[in-house]
């Protein structure tokens, strides 16, 4: 069964500083990897995804993530955070299962942005 670990529960970053959120996954085959963002009281918005090909993927809102198979990681980065980036971020892995692709989520990382 697949699983995801997000080691950092809470990160505080200054506006304009860089941000990196860590994600490690466990899955026997090629993983389908996602980062979602959830603002308070809101649903889940997809930031970016990795299926195959280039291991550095670009997403919305200036985010990018790098897939490293050797480290079983899919870390999310943003060079310069904005106050609006304060939210909870979830890494997820999708099972390569016919007609399924259920997602397993990490516990999430809460990002606080200070002025």
């Amino acid at each position: 069964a697949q699983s995801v670990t997000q080691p950092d529960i809470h990160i505080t970053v200054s506006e304009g500083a860089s941000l990196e959120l860590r994600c490690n996954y466990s899955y026997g085959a090629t993983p389908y990897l996602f980062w979602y963002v959830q603002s308070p009281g809101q649903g889940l918005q997809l930031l970016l995804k990795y299926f195959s090909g280039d291991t550095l993927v670009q997403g919305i809102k200036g985010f990018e993530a790098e897939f490293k198979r050797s480290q079983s990681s899919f870390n999310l980065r943003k060079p310069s955070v904005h106050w609006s980036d304060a939210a909870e971020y979830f890494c997820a892995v999708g099972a390569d299962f016919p007609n399924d692709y259920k997602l397993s989520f990490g516990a999430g990382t809460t990002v606080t942005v200070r002025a």
Partner: protein
Amino acid sequence: EPEVTQTPSHQVTQMGQEVILRCVPISNHLYFYWYRQILGQKVEFLVSFYNNEISEKSEIFDDQFSVERPDGSNFTLKIRSTKLEDSAMYFCASRDRGLSGEQYFGPGTRLTVT
């Protein structure tokens, strides 16, 4: 841009009552999912649905839960006899036939069982 919608946004019910949570997936999508998120915890998979049947369900999805696509547009989750521990945010998601596997999530229904 098409989106997944869910109603109601908040449902309060008494323990033992039945609730039905409703979702309208994106119209050309074929795969449907329910997830839940207990306050402060991770999002958990409940069930996936394709071709009018359940394709996979988690241990959480016991006999008290059922899903249905009654009319080709709605996708419902029914909890027959709610328990306090069913209090959570319930998210519906859908995806199309493509291999991308990208799931689009609705805004969620917050279920409070008292």
